[in-house]
């Protein structure tokens, strides 16, 4: 039995990479747009908010026991409603995110590195890797997360710690200038994207070798990626000042380009692109895994692997169509948090209440 499923350590690393995913590159910019020089306070506040909200997901995981999320959902809502909700949820949340993440990737690559490469080529290459990964199963992805996690940490360290000599910490002052509201606004953004997407980790509960370790993975990964976000936000804002940061599309990439010591230690901004590729892979892999498993359960397909390639192909087409241009991505990003709350806060809250009602009604019934 110890060959299948993932260990708590693997899941922690996978979740961390997932959370770093898209936000790594654009986060400082969108945070600085709201909370200016206090962007790093937004990251801290997000951590606190997440810790406050985490019991919601942990309780659901406990209620799930060793059932899959689909079985849990149908158990709560009945077969027809449960399956409908499941399918709608999958399309409207993880699958949509999957398209957007693909689009994010090609936007970055074609803006910053290869302007003449068609986005389809970028999409196709990463999709091949993701399809292979998802078909191979969570064990394989978990193990590759274990391998690549330290490379990511190393690259973050090389990239952002080499900025230390040029940091001007007075760019972080004055603290709390605009009051508390802009900081809160910024942290809502980070909370929704990516932290509350942890509702998707619930799909992985049955894959855990020991399901009770799920909450450990959740909290550890959140704190790890939170630390990394904090380091990145502080370095970017202290190196570039908030005004400049807010006007850049990819500040984390730009800031590495400014590194130049003694005309030798310079021009390694491509490490950020490598970072981004690695983290995006784990993001896409988790999203596609969730959609595949969820959909297979909902429409009673035994071999979920059969769905991987069709879903990836749909993603390939939709990624191109989902958003027409970069300004629309930026606009979409402004409303995205509130959209995400429907799936990541309201739905889990409803499930939790249903769970409590059932338990109250059937004290002597099935144990939870």
């Amino acid at each position, binding site marked *: 039995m110890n060959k299948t499923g993932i260990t708590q350590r693997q899941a922690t690393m996978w979740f961390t990479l997932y959370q770093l995913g898209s936000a790594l590159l654009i986060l400082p910019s969108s945070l600085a747009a709201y909370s200016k020089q206090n962007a790093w306070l937004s990251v801290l506040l997000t951590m606190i908010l997440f810790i406050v909200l985490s019991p919601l997901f942990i309780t659901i995981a406990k209620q799930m026991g060793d059932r899959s999320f689909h079985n849990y959902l149908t158990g709560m809502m009945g077969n027809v409603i449960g399956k409908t909700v499941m399918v709608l949820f999958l399309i409207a949340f993880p699958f949509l995110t999957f398209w957007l993440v693909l689009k994010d990737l090609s936007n970055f690559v074609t803006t910053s590195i290869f302007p003449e490469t*068609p986005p389809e080529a970028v999409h196709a290459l990463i999709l091949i890797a993701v399809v292979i990964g998802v078909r191979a199963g969570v064990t394989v992805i978990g193990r590759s997360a274990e391998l690549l996690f330290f490379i990511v940490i190393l690259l973050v360290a090389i990239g952002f710690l080499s900025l230390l000599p040029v940091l001007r910490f007075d760019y972080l002052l*004055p603290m709390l200038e605009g009051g508390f509201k802009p900081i809160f606004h910024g942290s809502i953004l980070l909370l929704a994207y990516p932290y509350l997407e942890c509702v998707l980790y619930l799909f992985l509960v049955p894959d855990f070798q020991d399901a009770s370790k799920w909450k450990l993975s959740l909290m550890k990964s959140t704190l790890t990626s939170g630390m990394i976000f904090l380091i990145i936000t502080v370095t970017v804002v202290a190196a570039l000042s908030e005004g*400049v940061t807010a006007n850049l599309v990819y500040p984390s990439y730009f800031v590495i380009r400014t590194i130049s010591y003694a005309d030798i230690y310079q021009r390694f901004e491509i490490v950020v692109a490598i970072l981004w590729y690695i983290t995006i892979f784990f993001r896409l892999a988790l999203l596609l895994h969730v959609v595949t498993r969820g959909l297979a359960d909902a429409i009673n397909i035994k071999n979920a692997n059969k769905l991987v390639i069709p879903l990836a192909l749909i993603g390939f087409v939709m990624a191109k169509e989902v958003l027409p241009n970069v300004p629309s991505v930026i606009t979409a990003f402004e409303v995205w948090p509130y959209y995400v709350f429907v799936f990541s806060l309201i739905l889990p809250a409803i499930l939790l209440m249903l769970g409590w009602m059932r338990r109250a009604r059937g004290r002597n019934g099935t144990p939870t």
Partner: protein
Amino acid sequence: MTSTMLNACMRFIALFTAALLMTLTLSGCWNRRELNDMAVAIAIGIDRVDEQYEVTIQTVDPSQMSNNRNVDRFPTRIYSEKASTIFEALRKVTSKSSRKIYLAHLLLLLFNEEMARDGIKEPLDFLFRDHEVRPDFNIAVTRGYQTKDVLSIVTPLEVLSALDLYRSLNVSQKLWAPTAAVNINEMMVMLTNDGVEPILTGLTLIGDLNKGLSADNVKQPRPYLYFKFKGIGVFRKDRLVGWLNEPDSKSFSYVNNHVSSTVGSVQCPGSKKRFAIELVKSKVSREPSIRNGSPHMKLIVHVSGNVGEVQCETEINDKSIIELQELASEQLKSIIENSIQHVQSQYGVDIYGFGANFHQKYPKQWRQWRTNWNEQFAQMSIEVQMDYHLRLIGKIISPFGNNPQQKKE
């Protein structure tokens, strides 16, 4: 038996196909650029010529950078095109050159004075937006000459004149101080942030322009034409409003902590002769405060220097060095005070970034000041406190030619 053979065979074919496919995809991407298709631009000059931009690019001729180069051909090529946007002008160059301009190794960006007075925001947009350009090149404004001329001169020390300009700018900021090597990243910070106005260093040519554009310029020890970085240009928003003279420029470098070393001379006690001091360490710390509701800035100047040259009659001993130290300290203090006063009364723009200091320390008051900060700056009281130390005196003790033994008798 046969089935395992077949399996092995299939395996081999599959691996072989995979390897073949990999070589196809790994050989490059859509965006590959061969080195011999690129013209590497090392400097760009932007001139304002009747409502259009005239963009001049200095590119490197790679075959001329090798050891066995042809002496008759020049290692740099200058292209120049007019268009209403920078991007168009750069692409237009391809009609004159067989190679596409590659901007990632840009060292220097020059504006002519007219362009700088017109506003540099618009021409800078392209250089930020384009993916090739790295944010590490320096910017300067040419005084009295078009950037086209400045980029075309032949300079003696480096085969690439842009490299000569770039190095000279960085060395002079470090060792002489009345220049400022502003890179594009710092420019962006100065343009976007509140409470600081941009500055750029000036660049001019001295000598005979026509003779300086040919290779003859470097065939003799004293060139017909040479360049000189001269003064710091003061900007209001993105428009040049005037120039600082040399002492004021130097004082600017002190206040903004750009000085790592410089030389200054001070009048001797009791005579018209002078002694020179090499500064080895200089740091100015700022203490913003509020007096009677208006901003007040206290600058604390920490300097240590060495005696470098003495024309005075006095002996150098522990008493006289204190005297010299006092004089030097007084002089630096008045230079700094005067130059800030000049900037306040003449231009009224906060190039020192004092506004940012007040913003950080007094965010509440800053909200009232920020809209008319430059007016506040013009009336602000400045206090300079000195912490000046002379340490070393060089290899001889008393002024050269004086014999301390004789005097003692």
